[in-house]
């Protein structure tokens, strides 16, 4: 059994996959990686199935020791990763590429910068933890799944499922040139320039949209909101001009991307660890294609919303999936 040793855990590093599905009727939400697109691409870069378990890094990355060499890929927010070899050389390695980390080397990840707040770190072979309720992800609130149902700590030994062929020079750090199209990143229109306003997040009207006062509906689409620091895996919390909500009689179903407006009038965009039901009016739901952008919205980031029609949302998602399929086939051809 091979494993990776955690020398330092970073701020919040958890094992995640693409979520557990089929247990909503027991009150268990999907969980899994918040930025599923970066998770899928990281796995594909190292030859894993897209849904293999990988690490989700939040704001500050971990320091990991590899007793035996392994192929890894880091996607999502860049973390200024450096491989420190057994003989003490420090070699910076880029995100969005397959990297060979040689025997006894340490992978040192820094803060998520300059954009985004989450990174996916995939290891060839996948992280080997038991499947619970159809998922390998960590449910932090209920304390099950992933690595012992909790975030990583120093000293943890994460099992890796299987080996993939090392490069010819297995003692060196190898970076394999690969080009990930921007559409397959959380920044499809390129990295935002400092201070520039990113394109608005595309949303579909929520079930209670029409019940909101006209002023709330207008403000929702006209204003810019700012991500607050109390955002977490259960939701991205926003601050801005208040959007007075209507009252709601009952709790109703919610999904990732649902934008709830609590009595404070400050929007909450639900993310992977959301409860399965919610009692706040749902003004809108983020289109699946823009969920990775919400996942990467870090505290202080500005966000605005624009309506998209169902057909358009579906068409754009299909286009992205075609791009992802072409990319996957290309990787298989090059391997």
């Amino acid at each position, binding site marked *: 059994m091979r494993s990776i040793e955690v020398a330092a855990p970073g701020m919040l590093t958890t094992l995640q996959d693409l979520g557990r599905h089929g247990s909503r009727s*027991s009150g268990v939400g999907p969980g899994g990686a918040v930025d599923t697109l970066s998770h899928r691409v990281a796995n594909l870069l190292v030859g894993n199935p897209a849904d293999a378990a990988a690490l989700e890094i939040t704001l500050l990355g971990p320091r990991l020791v590899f007793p035996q060499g392994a192929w890894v890929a880091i996607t999502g927010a860049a973390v200024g990763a450096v491989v420190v070899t057994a003989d003490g050389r420090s070699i910076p390695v880029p995100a969005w590429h397959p990297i060979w980390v040689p025997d006894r080397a340490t992978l040192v990840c820094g803060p998520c910068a300059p954009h985004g707040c989450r990174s996916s770190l995939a290891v060839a072979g996948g992280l080997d933890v038991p499947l619970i309720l159809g998922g390998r992800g960590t449910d932090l609130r209920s304390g099950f799944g992933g690595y012992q149902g909790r975030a990583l700590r120093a000293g943890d030994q994460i099992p890796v499922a299987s080996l993939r062929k090392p490069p010819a020079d297995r003692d060196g750090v190898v970076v394999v040139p690969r080009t990930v199209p921007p559409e397959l990143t959380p920044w499809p229109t390129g990295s935002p320039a400092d201070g520039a306003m990113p394109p608005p997040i595309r949303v579909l009207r929520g079930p209670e949209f029409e019940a909101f006062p006209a002023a709330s509906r207008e403000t929702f689409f006209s204003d810019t909101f700012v991500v607050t620091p109390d955002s977490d895996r259960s939701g991205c919390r926003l601050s801005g001009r208040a959007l007075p909500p209507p009252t709601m009689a009952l709790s109703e179903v919610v999904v990732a991307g649902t934008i709830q407006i609590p009595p404070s009038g400050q929007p909450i965009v639900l993310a992977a660890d959301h409860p399965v*039901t919610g009692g706040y009016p749902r003004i809108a739901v983020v289109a699946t294609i823009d969920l990775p952008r919400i996942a990467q919205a870090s505290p202080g980031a500005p966000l605005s919303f624009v309506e998209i029609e169902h057909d358009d949302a579906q068409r754009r998602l299909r286009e992205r999936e075609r791009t992802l399929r072409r990319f996957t086939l290309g990787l298989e051809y090059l391997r």
Partner: protein
Amino acid sequence: MASSLLTIEPLGDACLVVRFGTGVDAVTSRAVAAATAALTAAALPGVVDIAPTFNTVAVVFDPHQADPRELSGAILADLQNLNSSAPNPGTLVEIPVAYGGDDGPDLAAVAAHTGLDSDEVVRLHTTADHVVGMIGFAPGFPYLIGLPAALSIPRRATPRTSVPAGSVAIAERQTGIYPRTGPGGWHVIGRTPRAMFDPRRDPPALLRAGDRVRFVPVTGPVRSGERIR
């Protein structure tokens, strides 16, 4: 259950919500439970999860795989076939509860609010037929409908910061059971040693929407960590 009584509305681009009106009652719960069972058995392509609420069934799908228009048609077809079949009445589950004392710190307040004595509150709660309206809020948390009108009480003005796992609590016309220790705004009248949620169990939640529940009074106190599976 005629299909004209139900509507299908989208929730974003990866979920369709089948709605059976707006009522919260045992008849609606049975319709929801029957539809949940039918749609689960149908295993429609691209559908990843089926989740009932008080009066809806959410059909969560992978938008990379399923087309919402086709899926909507398939759902209607499946539920039309349901017309002739008898609705599933759900399982009867007995839940032992130690009422009052440290296990039910709000029992006296409920008695004072309702003008009943504590024994009468317990008698009404344990003789009522409760039905699971939905599981939500937290894994394994059941919203039970059927609380007698005489026990109706608004939520606590200030939620408790920590309610022990197994706490049986009431608010408005509902009873809930907290599966894990955490904050809660309902009035805690008792506590059960039954584990409401266990991820190693299949299904992990003790109760399902549509199940009938009878509370059985037992003598406490319920000790933390004590579990009957």
